[in-house]
């Protein structure tokens, strides 16, 4: 389950969507899919870009699962069908947020001699294969390069998952505008916070889910490292241990603040993560703690 307060227009902007005209003219249907939960959030239409939107409804289904798979289990697909059935044929801007457990992230160093797009794709695939093995064969890649000489951030999702999602949506005459990973939303929210509060573009940007933490290191506006760690209920302790290890290996990263969603923070999280500085990322609009699910059910 993703611990993130949504903020349409900030964590997922209009220009990010392949169907941006729908993002401008239709209400948003956001599906957050993970192994252990699936969430359906309905937002009112944003009449103007950047305008705050109101949450219309929030429905969460929680599953009891064992282990983690590359693709969501059948119970998730069945639940997705159930959620989409009443929305069939309606006009929605569909945003699908996939759990980080389905995604692969990688920071690849700059290579001056790689210029053409074909060479870049081969380089990305090779890097992904080196990091994640043969599993990365049928993955769809998306890369976002930094400035000249800076590393490239790489994201991969299983092609089978994307195709199946599109097939399910097609069944209900819906077309996705965005299919992205959960960490992207957290990162965009954190970057927005940095811009608004004029913070230096540096820190650990962390996306918390029930069973994992996805953390990326940003220094001077460039991505340095990205990793995923499995956690349990004592996630704060695990995170602190991880940060301490990083501090030993890279002393220049010792003073970096930790950007965590307000949804992920517990009462004593700040104290547990001490001496690291924790920056609370919260949506600037009315969406926040109030975006707790209106309906929540549990499926065994």
């Amino acid at each position: 389950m993703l611990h993130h307060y949504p903020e349409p227009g900030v964590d997922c902007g209009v220009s990010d969507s392949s169907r941006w005209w729908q993002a401008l003219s239709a209400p948003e249907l956001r599906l957050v899919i993970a192994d252990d939960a699936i969430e359906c959030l309905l937002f009112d239409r944003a009449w103007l870009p950047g305008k705050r939107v109101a949450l219309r409804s929030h429905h969460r289904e929680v599953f009891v699962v064992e282990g983690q798979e590359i693709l969501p289990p059948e119970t998730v697909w069945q639940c997705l069908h159930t959620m989409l059935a009443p929305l069939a044929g309606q006009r929605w801007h569909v945003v699908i947020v996939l759990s980080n457990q389905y995604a692969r992230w990688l920071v690849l160093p700059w290579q001056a001699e790689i210029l053409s797009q074909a060479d870049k794709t081969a380089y990305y695939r090779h890097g992904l294969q080196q990091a994640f093995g043969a599993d990365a064969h049928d993955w769809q890649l998306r890369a976002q390069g930094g400035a000249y000489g800076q590393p490239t951030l790489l994201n991969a999702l299983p092609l089978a998952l994307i195709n199946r999602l599109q097939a399910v949506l097609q069944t209900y005459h819906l077309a996705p505008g965005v299919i992205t990973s959960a960490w992207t939303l957290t990162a965009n929210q954190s970057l927005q916070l940095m811009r608004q509060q004029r913070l230096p573009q540096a820190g650990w940007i962390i996306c918390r889910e029930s069973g994992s933490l996805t953390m990326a290191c940003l220094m001077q506006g460039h991505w340095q490292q990205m990793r995923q760690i499995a956690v349990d209920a004592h996630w704060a302790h695990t995170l602190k241990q991880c940060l301490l290890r990083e501090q030993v290996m890279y002393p220049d990263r010792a003073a970096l603040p930790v950007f965590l969603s307000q949804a992920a923070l517990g009462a004593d999280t700040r104290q547990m993560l001490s001496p690291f500085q924790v920056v609370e990322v919260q949506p600037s609009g009315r969406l926040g703690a109030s975006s707790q699910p209106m309906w929540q059910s549990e499926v065994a």
Partner: protein
Amino acid sequence: MQRLKFNHVASRVPGPFALLIGGGLLIFLAVLIAIYDQLAHENAALQQQWQRRQTLLAPQPSISHQPVVDQALAAEWLAAQQALNTPWLALLQDLEQAQQVPVYWLQLAPDAKRQHLRMTVLAQRRQQGWAWLDQLKKQPSLTNVKLNASEATEVNGLRMTTLQLEAAWTF
């Protein structure tokens, strides 16, 4: 640091900003075309105006009337012109060239209008008259030389032959 856009939905539709820029360029182009069209119309109108002005300022062409000429005068003018163009000198030279034998002219009546000559001469002997006739036939300006009549006559006690000839005068 720009936003992250890791969208796994493939799309060929250009983004809103690209579309906005493209739309702006199209509108700009349309405005340019409209301005060009208006200027072209104004230019054409100005050219027409300038041509009208040039036409008004240009000197009026003189109206050429056919001169009124009296028919009789025109006939006289034509006759005079024909008389001036008649090759009298060429005829005189031809006649002088033919007169290698002594003959005495009694009459020479050239008619330039009809291009005809009538001649009457006296020759001491008949053969001299015929020889002169042969010479006349060789002249380029005279054709169809005919001897109409020849008769013996006596002039001051001398026996002479009168020859009457006519010929076509070619010029």
